[in-house]
């Protein structure tokens, strides 16, 4: 396995292979092909999405399956719910997760509740792709991280891949899933290149991944925060501190077992989450460990999140906004102070 492709291409490949395997899979979104009905383009896409993630798919599957929509998020996202409830497997794209406010009812009150309200008689095999994250100077309305907000809704699954391999496998798994899966892509990861198998495969939704085993401190991360943790772990290694790094992968429902088992071993927990600090996934993990894992804890649980502010535009402020290795390092030092003394 030596082929390296970008995070973006891995996602593209998942859609491609899923569409090839199953005719019921269709894509919907604003300019995901681009240039609908423009004569000189025909089936050629003008854009392939604002970042190019869906590039090439309209050429292969045609405009019946790669459907450009007007700017009508409630309309086409709700249509995706309706199409899913009646047997298709739609994969709509919400261009930025910050636009969630334009189609929120569809997810909060319609799609996620249908099966329950209908006494188990509905299936909503719907995968919503969207992108999140600060770091692209996209300012307050295009840089938020709302996976935790979506993760609070019963009936919705939420995944946040940190790398190209997982991205491809999780997206395939999401499209195979008979539930609403929100698939969050960190826009600042699109360019990273990694080894990704060419064949179709899935990555299990609901399983966290231990990226580095360790005995002294557990750091749980969401999405690209993994790289912050790995950096810190490496630094601490030189101090003789052994960090276990866990990539949460699935934000809802998240993998309690893997995390509690880790804390059982390490007794110390840091969670890094780029979301705003309140009522987010980090706090959720913390609260579960503070309950079920309390007896294993040797010290306070630390959540390292974005501050309680919108995302600022100026690059220097934006850099401060995103949780970084320095902050984590400092807190980690506090936690392991006793360890170093002994």
């Amino acid at each position: 396995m030596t082929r390296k492709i970008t995070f973006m291409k891995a996602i593209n490949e998942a859609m491609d292979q899923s569409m090839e395997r199953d005719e019921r899979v269709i894509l919907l979104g604003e300019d995901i092909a681009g240039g609908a009905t423009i004569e000189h383009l025909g089936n050629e896409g003008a854009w392939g999405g604002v970042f190019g993630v869906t590039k090439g798919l309209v050429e292969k599957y045609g405009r019946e399956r790669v459907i450009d929509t007007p700017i009508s998020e409630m309309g086409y996202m709700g249509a995706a719910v309706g199409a899913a409830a009646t047997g298709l497997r739609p994969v709509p794209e919400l261009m930025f997760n910050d636009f969630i406010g334009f189609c929120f009812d569809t997810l909060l009150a319609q799609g996620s509740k249908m099966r329950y309200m209908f006494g188990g008689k509905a299936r909503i095999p719907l995968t919503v792709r969207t992108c999140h994250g600060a770091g692209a100077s996209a300012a307050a309305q295009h840089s938020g991280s709302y996976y935790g907000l979506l993760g609070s809704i019963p009936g919705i699954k939420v995944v946040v891949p940190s790398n190209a391999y997982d991205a491809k496998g999780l997206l395939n798994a999401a499209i195979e899933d008979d539930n609403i899966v929100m698939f969050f892509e960190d826009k600042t990861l699109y360019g990273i290149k990694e080894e990704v198998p060419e064949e179709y495969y899935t990555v299990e939704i609901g399983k966290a991944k231990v990226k580095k085993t360790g005995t002294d401190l557990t750091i749980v991360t969401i999405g690209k925060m993994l790289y912050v943790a790995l950096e810190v772990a490496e630094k601490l290694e030189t101090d003789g501190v052994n960090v276990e790094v866990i990539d949460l992968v699935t934000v809802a429902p998240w993998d309690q077992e893997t995390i509690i088992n880790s804390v059982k071993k390490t007794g110390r927990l840091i969670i890094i989450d780029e979301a705003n600090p309140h009522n987010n996934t980090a706090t959720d993990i913390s609260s579960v460990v503070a309950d079920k894992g309390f007896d294993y804890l040797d010290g306070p649980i630390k959540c390292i999140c974005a501050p309680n502010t919108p995302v600022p535009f100026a690059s220097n402020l934006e850099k401060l906004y995103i949780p970084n290795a320095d902050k984590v390092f400092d807190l980690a030092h506090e936690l392991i102070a006793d360890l170093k003394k002994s």
Partner: protein
Amino acid sequence: MSKLDKKNAAWIYEKMNDIRNFEDEVHRIFTSGEIPGFVHLYAGEEAVATGVCAHLTDADYITSTHRGHGHCIAKGCDLNGMMAEIFGKETGLCKGKGGSMHIADIDKGMLGANGMVGGGFPIAVGAGLRNKYLKTDNVVVCFFGDGAANEGTFHEGINLAAIWKLPVIFVCENNLFAEATPQSYSSASKTIAQRGIAYDIPGVSVDGMDLKEVYKTAGEAIDRARKGDGPTIIECLTYRKYGHFEGDEQKYKAKEGLEKERADLDCIQLFREEAIASKLLTKEQADGIEANSVKAIAKAIQFAQESPIPRPEALYEDVYAD
């Protein structure tokens, strides 16, 4: 398009009576306290649901509203299961977990009553997209109220259906009010039908108390849709017999003018007379349908009353599909 014939007429008359009896009884029982929650009754508007659904099969879809009992019955939902649902019983169409505002039966093409005003538009568009994508000639009917027409979903949904030429028929039940707010206040346009121009699709207004008119207009629009000619807006002028929900004093209804005119009409009575006069029904047949309907509803109530409440574990079930 199927013509209104004896078979259709009997079916329609039966469903009209079922709806009216169902709602009158729910009204009665609600007052006694045996039914909890919010209940919005469809009584008075029977000509719309039945006149439209008479053209549909189980393979056609509808989306409904908070005032959904009539649509459910016209789309063929089981009366026992419906009544049990409203009572919150295990035998309900949704196992008692949905209630009046969420009755659904996807196998019958009934995509759910909806507690969210305007929630049905996008869902109907999605079902329409599905029908077109799968190259079926099935249609989708999206029922909505005059009040719902002011939600953004109306605009987004109809625009999508229009640009994609989807087989979706948007049927507005204009009963003059959204809760206590008159349509004349809430919509800048005099009619909902005229909004068709904003989507370059036909928009027609019909007397929603006149079954034959509803039946004919709906039939034409559904035919158009089946042929791939895209959506239509049909505005049916109608009136609800009861308050917005059970308990509403209805101070807002005037005792004269358009309101009195509407209140004085009974679409079932009108259709009975009309159908008998034009020999679509005999008087005996009509009487028989009426009597059977009363019995069917009584049976449904008994079924609901005698059904068990949900098992406690049901609370946790049906959140995710495996």
